[in-house]
């Protein structure tokens, strides 16, 4: 389904965020991606839909080489990959419905999205998804009127509205309280099970990862240092991922995280730049 081959990302500053990362993701598998902050989790996820441009290596989505696509083809590939963000990243001043429908942007021509006249099937799907995530009462509310947990549910509905073949999920619970975190994780995993959707969940909470994921991949300084079943995540494996007291690496990691973010932003700016 998704095959990642020796993916490497070196930032302009020379920092290596990803070094020779390879793994396969079969259909229906939920992978928890863990590691100290800045181990390259964020970069890895963004390299898959090329919000961050990888330096070398390949990303194959059903034998389609995502890394070699041109602009138009990349858009068609992106619409098959749903993404859920840490800070929800909803368009705050649009209604909940518009946010969910924005998942169809890759499918509809500009005039339809501009006049908000989406095809009936898309609208029915959006209503169904909002019902599924428990927000049917909030369809016409503006996104900034919702609570954190509700916003993340909208984020989930938006990603699913794309009818994705793959979900990329970046720290879905980082801005939520523990109880809501659990609810959101459970919802995501349930949906993945129902639809047989593969997902990569980038998560810092090891306990949540062990509880909900089928498989755990541990990243440390851009390298895969663990890949196995949640049950195999022993004390020793955790030390390998997080280091006993390797604080210096963590601090450097935080800087890298910031870099991933700025590069992703610069990238989207560049995209807009060609407007």
């Amino acid at each position, binding site marked *: 389904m998704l095959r990642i081959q020796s993916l490497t990302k070196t930032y302009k500053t020379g920092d290596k965020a990803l070094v020779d990362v390879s793994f396969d993701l079969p259909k229906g598998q939920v992978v928890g991606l863990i590691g100290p902050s800045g181990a390259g989790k964020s970069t890895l996820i963004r390299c898959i839909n090329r919000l961050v441009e990888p330096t070398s290596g390949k990303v194959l989505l059903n034998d389609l080489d995502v890394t070699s696509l041109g602009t138009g083809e990349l858009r068609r590939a992106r619409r098959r990959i749903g993404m859920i963000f840490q800070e929800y990243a909803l368009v705050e001043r649009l209604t909940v*419905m*518009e946010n969910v429908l924005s998942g169809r942007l890759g499918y509809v021509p500009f005039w339809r999205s501009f006049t908000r006249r989406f095809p009936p099937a898309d*609208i*029915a*799907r959006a*209503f169904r998804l909002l019902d599924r995530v428990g927000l049917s009462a909030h369809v*016409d509310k503006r996104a900034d009127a919702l609570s954190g947990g509700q916003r993340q549910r909208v984020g989930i509905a938006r990603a699913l509205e794309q009818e994705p073949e793959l979900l990329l999920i970046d720290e879905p619970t980082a801005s939520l309280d523990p109880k809501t975190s659990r609810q959101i994780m459970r919802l995501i995993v349930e949906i993945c099970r129902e639809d047989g959707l593969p997902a990569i969940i980038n998560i810092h909470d090891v306990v949540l990862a062990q509880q909900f994921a089928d498989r755990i991949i541990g990243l440390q300084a851009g390298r895969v240092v663990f890949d196995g079943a949640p049950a195999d995540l022993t004390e020793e494996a955790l030390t390998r991922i997080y280091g006993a007291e390797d604080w210096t690496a963590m601090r450097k990691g935080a800087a890298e995280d910031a870099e991933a973010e700025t590069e992703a932003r610069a990238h989207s700016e560049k995209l807009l730049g060609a407007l």
Partner: protein
Amino acid sequence: MTAYPTRWTRPPQLVKSRWWRIILAIGAIVYLVLAVGSVDVNWTRIADGWERGMRFVGGFLQPDFTTRWKDISTGLLESLTMTFTSTVVGILISVPIGVGAARNVAPRWIYAICRSIIAASRALQEIIVAIFFVALFGFGAFAGFLTLTFATIGFIAKLLAEDIEDIDESQAEAIRATGASWLQLIHYAVQPQVMPRLIGLSLYRFDINFRESAVIGIVGAGGIGGTLNTALNRYEYDSAGAILLIIIAIVMVAEYASGHLRRLLK
């Protein structure tokens, strides 16, 4: 399996009532038709103007600084000196007025007087004030100086008063508790809090005053505006282009310099 709706329209964001939306839309269209209809365009005059417009663009691209340089430099010097003196005097006058217009430090009757001075200065456009000062003091830079000073008072005093009203009351409280007099209160509790912004505002006002000094010359209050007016009346577009370019350049320099200074003083 429930059937989900297949239609959705965005709920109106600003005006909720359907009738009001229709009334507003019709009103806007009627107004636009009437307003556009009231503009009678003299096409032959515009056709004539086209050639002159092109000459102006030409003058702008090939400005002539030399022919009228004497007039330009006099006007420019007048504008700059006028700007500087009026900004300084304006600030000197607006500081006591600004303090007087702050509700938390001034008695009620002083507050009322200072606020009405500010309101008068802000409501009257510079040009109208300039017309009056020219009528009273004769043509020339002095009338311009008075106009800009008057306008500066309204601007600086209002913002200063708002700043003083926003100061941290606990600091004023602490100074009052030491048994300080009113002047000492202003000096120790108010001044340190509003000084940085006052400097910023003064630089900003200098900027505005220069721009305005280029305008009030049109009604005879001295400065580069008068020179520009003469050049345009004589259809000397190359000199006019030169003057406009100088104004743009000075405004850009002043804006850049004052932005830089403000950052430096922070």
